[in-house]
């Protein structure tokens, strides 16, 4: 069965205008009378289709255009050119019907009332999003359990830790059971345990509710653990869009083959098998092109060196991504 297209983006561009301010008193005075307007293309010609229930990750360095794209998808920013359709709506019209069906969680901004316990913000959102009592109770109980926050929902938001607050942000955003969820750096600044909690929750939520989730992050871990499909954005352009596996096979040309020997062995003996990355007599690490791994390993096994163990590893994803950006 063909799945519904939830997000459709065509030739999307966004150009920001900014005023350049050179340092120094002279230039400051000059700026009073004449300011030089400059333009920055934050997003250049992006095309994207996202299906229902997908959990897709936008990955890229700071200033790559990830957040700008999300903001155009949610109707905060007007595109300079190109078209955006989400759930059949044009986001920038900011129609109520559309707003009732999505949620946007920003790691850097809070929608909770700072001086009140999160529960008050939940109740307010219940009213704002016109959630029925039963739905509210069911959703809230479920999420409180999943995120393990029953202790803190009645504590003032300003007294919560960043991780606790983030969990509450998620709950506040999801009470109306949105069809599309935009997550902008949801794990930014969190410790490893909190990151994992949030990640587990997002994965589970996506599996159970089939909510379409678009996530941005510059933490590789977030993306590789959560998303099947990733979109890598750099300097406003999509440089890769596809499955994580494709990314690995396309950009990770080599595999790491580590061989442990029982007895010390001379470097000359193993040099002929391939490029050596590491060598210490008992252990040798080869960087071998993916397609050659089988034959090379076969050749090594066929020799009469006493081999204790063999490990074959992928390059770690961080270095793969570095490869992508280098190109």
């Amino acid at each position, binding site marked *: 069965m063909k799945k519904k297209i939830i997000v459709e983006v065509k030739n999307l561009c966004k150009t920001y205008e900014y005023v350049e301010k050179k340092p120094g008193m002279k230039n400051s005075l000059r700026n009073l009378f004449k300011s030089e307007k400059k333009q920055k293309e*934050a997003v250049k010609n992006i095309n994207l289709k996202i299906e229902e229930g997908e959990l897709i990750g936008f990955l890229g360095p700071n200033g790559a255009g990830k957040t700008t794209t999300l903001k155009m998808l949610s*109707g905060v920013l007007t595109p300079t050119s190109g078209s955006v359709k989400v759930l059949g709506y044009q986001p920038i019209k900011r129609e109520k019907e559309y707003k009732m069906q999505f*949620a*946007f969680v920003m790691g850097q901004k809070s929608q909770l*009332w700072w001086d009140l316990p999160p529960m008050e913000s939940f109740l*307010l959102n219940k009213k*704002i999003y016109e959630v029925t009592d039963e739905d509210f109770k069911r959703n809230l109980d479920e999420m409180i359990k999943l995120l393990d926050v029953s202790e803190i929902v009645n504590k003032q938001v300003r007294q919560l830790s960043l991780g606790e607050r983030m969990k509450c942000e998620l709950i506040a955003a999801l009470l109306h059971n949105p069809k599309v969820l935009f997550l902008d750096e949801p794990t930014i600044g969190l410790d490893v345990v909190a990151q994992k909690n949030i990640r587990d929750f997002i994965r589970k939520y996506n599996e159970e509710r089939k909510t379409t989730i678009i996530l941005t992050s510059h933490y590789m871990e977030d993306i590789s653990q959560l998303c099947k499909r990733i979109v890598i954005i750099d300097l406003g352009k999509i440089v890769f869009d596809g499955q994580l596996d494709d990314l690995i096979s396309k950009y990770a040309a080599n595999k790491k083959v580590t061989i442990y020997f029982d007895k010390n062995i001379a470097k000359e003996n193993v040099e002929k098998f391939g490029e050596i990355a590491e060598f210490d007599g008992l252990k040798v690490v080869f960087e071998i092109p993916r397609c050659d791994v089988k034959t090379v390993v076969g050749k090594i096994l066929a020799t009469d060196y006493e081999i204790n163990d063999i490990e074959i590893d992928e390059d770690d994803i961080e270095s793969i991504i570095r490869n992508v950006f280098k190109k």
Partner: protein
Amino acid sequence: MKMILKALFEMFLKSKKELHMQKYIAVATNNIKKNLIYKANSFIMVFSVFFSFVVLFYFWNSIYRQGNQLGSYSLSEIISYYVFMTIFELLVVGDNTAWSVGDEIKNGQITSSLLKPIKYLEYKFSQSVGGLLFRLMLFSPAILAIFYFLRDYIAIPKDNFIYFIFPLIAVISYALYFLVYYLVGVLSFWTADSYGFLFAAFVIVNFMQGGLLPLDLLPSWFAVLGNFLPFKYLFFVPVGVVTGRTVFEYTFVLVPMLWVVALYYFAGFLYKKGLRKYEGYGI
């Protein structure tokens, strides 16, 4: 059948409306709760407002006792004016719409209001009303106490009609007050130094509404200027009516109402323009 359908349709409309209202009521109550957390703030405010009132009270008393007079104001009239100013400061001037709108624009918090199925102006108005209700709850005993202790000074309207019309005037004035400061806040889209601007706006508006001196003591050209502006309807005109110094005219209701409508649409227009500009630079 047609009748039933019509009734159902009307019920549907009504329930929609109620849901809509409920949102804003919830915003207002949340703001009351927030204020309750910072009640100490409010007590400090009461103290400072009362302090300045007591000073003014003795100041005018001693001036009048020496046989001097301020324009055509009798002692009772001038004391009444400042009593109402104190009440106005306690209940209305504590409203921080301009600051909070300005703040939300500067720190980008306004983005999260854009994402919600809620109107920004109405959202802010609900917050403002929440604050007003909170101060009304907290300060009513103090206000009643003032009226009791100064019962010999305060001019009380003899015409019963005033008791009927004043609440209406007060409500319109409040809406107008909110809109003026909402607009000042929205101007933060264009001002780089928003605090300086907000402060200046506050001082000017306060003067123009009669927050320092009764406006009829000022030169006549000022009155002419004031007629083209909404500010005197924020405080000076309503107080004139309730103290019986000014005879009620229907324009006291009509003109501020027109101002409310005009500023409401102007605010919507300015907000849209502001957002456009804001986006250009990135939020």
